[in-house]
């Protein structure tokens, strides 16, 4: 897959693999990003994977954009794409209730029972295409076609952190409270973002996510343990 290069001013370069949401492009983005972690380049200050391109921030005093492009071209010839071990998360979700306020309406729209909808939503494996929009906000792809849903015409003002959403062909785990035009099916007691934790952000681009239905009582119990400082939101053991 051959990328195109696009300057984003004098301090950032966009390495674009596709204009569309594309798993292969996202694999390339993540692999190229990982190569900067494994073999850093002096002058590169940040590397940001997105759906379809890698954004690379640099300090022009140390590294010029043209030299960075040459470095990436040579890297791309040697990048390993095969079988990168991805972190896998099983995220507990209490479906419905106050936060999953769209569950019943959505089931009705789709001609399913709420149980069928929960089964469909929690049986898919999602990919974290990128983190963006807000601290720790995970954009998930891999939503089953039957669950693709247009966004609301009017965003709602106060969606809490932990809300589990659907917007268009994407799914989300909301990381901070705020307005949103997505539809919400449930709530996870996990905190995708907590600035006071040693690891403030749970997810990163390339992770895989499955949702695990739990009762509201179980979810509240998990929330209590997390609030007490227990480090229980962890990925499955990776191979």
């Amino acid at each position, binding site marked *: 897959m051959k990328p195109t290069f*696009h*300057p*984003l*001013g*004098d*301090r*950032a370069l*966009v390495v*674009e693999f596709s*204009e*569309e*949401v594309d798993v292969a492009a996202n694999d390339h983005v993540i692999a190229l*990003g990982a190569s900067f972690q494994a073999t850093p380049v002096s002058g590169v*200050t*940040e*590397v*940001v*994977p*997105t*759906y*379809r*391109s890698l*954004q690379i*921030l640099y300090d*022009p*005093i140390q590294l*010029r*954009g*043209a030299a960075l492009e040459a470095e990436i071209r040579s890297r791309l010839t040697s990048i390993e794409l095969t079988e990168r071990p991805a972190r896998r998360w099983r995220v507990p979700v209490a479906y419905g209730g106050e936060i999953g306020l769209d569950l019943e309406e959505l089931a009705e729209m789709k001609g399913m029972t709420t149980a069928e909808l929960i089964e469909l939503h929690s049986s898919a494996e999602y990919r974290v295409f*990128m*983190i*963006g*929009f*807000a*601290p*720790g*906000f995970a*954009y998930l792809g891999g939503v089953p076609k039957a669950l693709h849903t247009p966004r609301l015409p009017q965003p709602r003002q106060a969606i809490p952190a932990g809300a589990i959403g659907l917007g268009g062909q994407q799914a989300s785990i909301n*990381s*901070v409270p705020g307005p949103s035009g997505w539809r919400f099916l449930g709530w996870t007691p996990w905190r995708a*973002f907590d*600035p006071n934790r040693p690891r*403030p*952000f749970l997810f*990163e*681009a390339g992770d895989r996510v499955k949702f695990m239905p739990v009762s509201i009582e179980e979810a509240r119990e998990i929330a209590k343990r997390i609030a007490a400082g227990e480090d229980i939101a962890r990925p499955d053991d990776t191979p």
Partner: protein
Amino acid sequence: MTLEVISTGPMLSIQDQGRSGLRHFGVSAAGPMDAPSLALANALCGNSTTAAGLEFAGVGGRFRADHPIHFAVTGGDCEIKVGDRLRPTRECHRLEPGEDLQIGFLRGATWGYLAIAGGIDVPEVLNARATHLRFGLGGHEGRVLKAGDRLPLGPPPEEQTCLRALPSMSGSSHRDGPIRIVLGPQDGYFSDYVKARLTEEAFTITPKRDRMATVLEGPPLPAERGHDIVSDGTIAGAIQVPGSGQPMVLMAEAQTTGGYPKIATVISSDLPRLAQMVTGTQFRFAVVDRDAAEEIAIEEAARLDRMLRNLAVKADRVLSSDYLLSCDLIGGFSCPEQITGDD
């Protein structure tokens, strides 16, 4: 040591250089809208460039300290009073405990900076003290400051230097020219005809502006390939064009990814100048290529560095008896205001 906010305008926040390295977790840098001005304010009172100061929009406010402090105000011209004595911007002054420091309205600028020797010593959040207002991170409780807030101050430098910038000194060599841009990354979404409008016609700074973005008014910029892209990375300075065709320039606190095509990006050296333009200012864009923009960034960084290293020590006047006494009590004082007893 604390600094108390007695009164202030609607937009006073703690800022340092901002957060780096967290964009891939969805956290943009925040930090100052005009970084060279905060760097100057810090340098004037002997702080390191990483110290946190206060950023205000439009009007400063009234402040009081519980210990003698040294401070400097930069960003634009404004009336500064220590007690009832007027003090110039762009130099270091002393404020005694109980005295009021008043900072009035900026003239011909939008963002002002108040640095205090020792810096504002709030705890770091995600490796910076900068306030990220949108997500309530850092600074003082993650929010704009209001009357009654008390801010902890760091220990002042051991040798308090008291400096001033000469009127001829400027952080930028390009104060009045067009705002320079590099085309892309989505300039291919726009016809040549529309791209030409970008530089041939004037744009105006509208009142729709904050620390996230500045909306411009000017000729419409319709994207022939549409105004929706699959979200990709953004940066401060990127010029997004939503469906309205009215461009917005992303600023310090912009979200890290966005779904509007970005026709061009303001070069990093000209972004502070754009941020400082008062609402209603008309200006033009001029296209430069990336290589030229990088050369400018390198030159401007060297220029700012030279300026910060060549600040003038405030002139000695008659030695005061207070100063002579203080020599026996405190070693290493080199602030002329101590010497002259003028402040």
